[in-house]
């Protein structure tokens, strides 16, 4: 077996960031999706749609490599998922789970923690960048000093999103990021993701949501999962 890829060669001009072909997933003998194929180009805002229980979460988890692929291939930046070193893969393609999970301590520390992982070697946590993001959603730097155990549900999701954005992935997978949030917090999440997207050319996201109006706002096209 060859060494897992940590740094892919430069992407060709018209190549997609992410290409998915022939994905299949069954749970307890029931096929959720099969022959699922799509590609994501730089700058694209993709909604993943489908009824409850259609496997949207499983799809995002598979794309993030947290679930084994039953069939088909996932190609990130021209390299098949199977050939990537997974930490290096997940540095470029990050999943924001529906339920945020933050370590104990201040928000500041929670944001800085992942920079200690080897996959992020050579990069440093920049509190100024965190404050810049926060200002865009009308919050001040004092948010960084709060204790994660005292955050509301919306604030926790905000912190978890901020943590992902500061790591500057190229592809973001957002799994119902605003499902349990009020309107203000949802708006903040949307604004932050938009800010992250416009900060780089080689970026794109996939977003699942039950809210049709939100899908309308945040996506330019959609991928349908499940028997539609």
């Amino acid at each position, binding site marked *: 077996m060859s060494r897992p890829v940590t740094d892919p060669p430069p992407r060709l001009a018209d190549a997609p960031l992410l290409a998915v072909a022939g994905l299949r997933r069954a749970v307890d003998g029931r096929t959720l999706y099969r022959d699922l194929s799509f590609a994501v180009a730089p700058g694209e805002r993709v909604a993943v749609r489908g009824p409850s229980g259609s496997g949207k979460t499983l799809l995002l988890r598979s794309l993030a490599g*947290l679930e*084994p692929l039953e069939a088909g291939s996932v190609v990130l930046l021209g390299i098949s998922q199977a050939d990537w070193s*997974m930490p290096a893969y*997940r540095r470029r393609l990050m999943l924001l*789970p529906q339920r945020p999970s933050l*370590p104990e301590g201040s928000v500041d520390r929670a944001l800085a923690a992942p920079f200690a992982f*080897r996959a992020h070697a050579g990069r440093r946590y920049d509190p100024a960048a965190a404050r810049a993001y926060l200002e865009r959603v009308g919050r001040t730097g004092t948010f960084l000093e709060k204790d994660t155990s005292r955050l509301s549900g919306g604030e926790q999701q905000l912190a978890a999103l901020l943590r992902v954005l500061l790591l500057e992935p190229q592809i973001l997978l957002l799994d119902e990021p605003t499902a349990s949030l009020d309107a203000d917090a949802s708006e903040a999440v949307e604004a932050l993701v938009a800010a992250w997207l416009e900060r780089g050319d080689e970026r794109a996201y996939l977003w699942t949501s039950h809210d049709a109006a939100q899908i309308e706002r945040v996506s330019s096209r959609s991928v349908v999962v499940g028997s539609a």
Partner: protein
Amino acid sequence: MPAAYLTLGPVQLALAAVLLLVNLGLSAWLRLGLARSLLVAASRMVVQLLLVGLVLQFVFALHQPLPVLGIALVMATLAGVAAVNRTRRRFPGVLWDSLLTVVTAAFLVTGASLLGILRVRPWFEAQYAIPLLGMVLGNTLNGISLALDRFMEGVADGREAIEARLALGASRWEAAHGLVRESLRTGMIPTINAMMVMGVVSLPGMMTGQILAGAAPTDAVRYQIVIMFMIASATALGALGVTLLAFRALFDARDRLRSERLRRVGGRR
């Protein structure tokens, strides 16, 4: 040479059993429902110990290495099984992981001590090998059981946190490192606590046994120190070994958490 201690006959055993009768009477009188389990446990203890006494007497008289090794293997296997039985979850292969760890940790430490520290000649002298191994096994089994249980519970309870770290680019080792440390700590706590208060709060069983058998307290204490170091090192080795094997079973080479491999059982505590 006459024995340096009083030998006990059936009469003494029967008299000691009377001590238990008091409890049985109290339990029956107050309807505590303890009588039955107390009787069963006491009978089991008597039968098991009398049998073990006979077996050991037989093995001691043989002065052969193979029977000693055989007994040692049986003891280690029982310890490995018991360690898993006390945990609340299982994954495929957990029994082998436990057996491998118990045998390796206990045999390495006991072997090295018999040969290198106590310098028993021949090394298989059952008078030394069996009791020392037994004490090491009993404690290693505890350490393995606690560490394994902590690790599996940590994976089950902390699935979201672990996967959150993986999703942020952590390797499986980076994602599990905190839990591995926590599991080792849990496995070592009883041994560390025991060493802390030894001789002050508790008089260890082996030392008291040697004193009863006529050994000078200063000699008995030296044995106790050696055995505690053996126990501490075997327990640390066992807890580390079993945690690493469980880590390998529950995290795969693609840096994924495989929590679906964990199965809950009605654990005995």
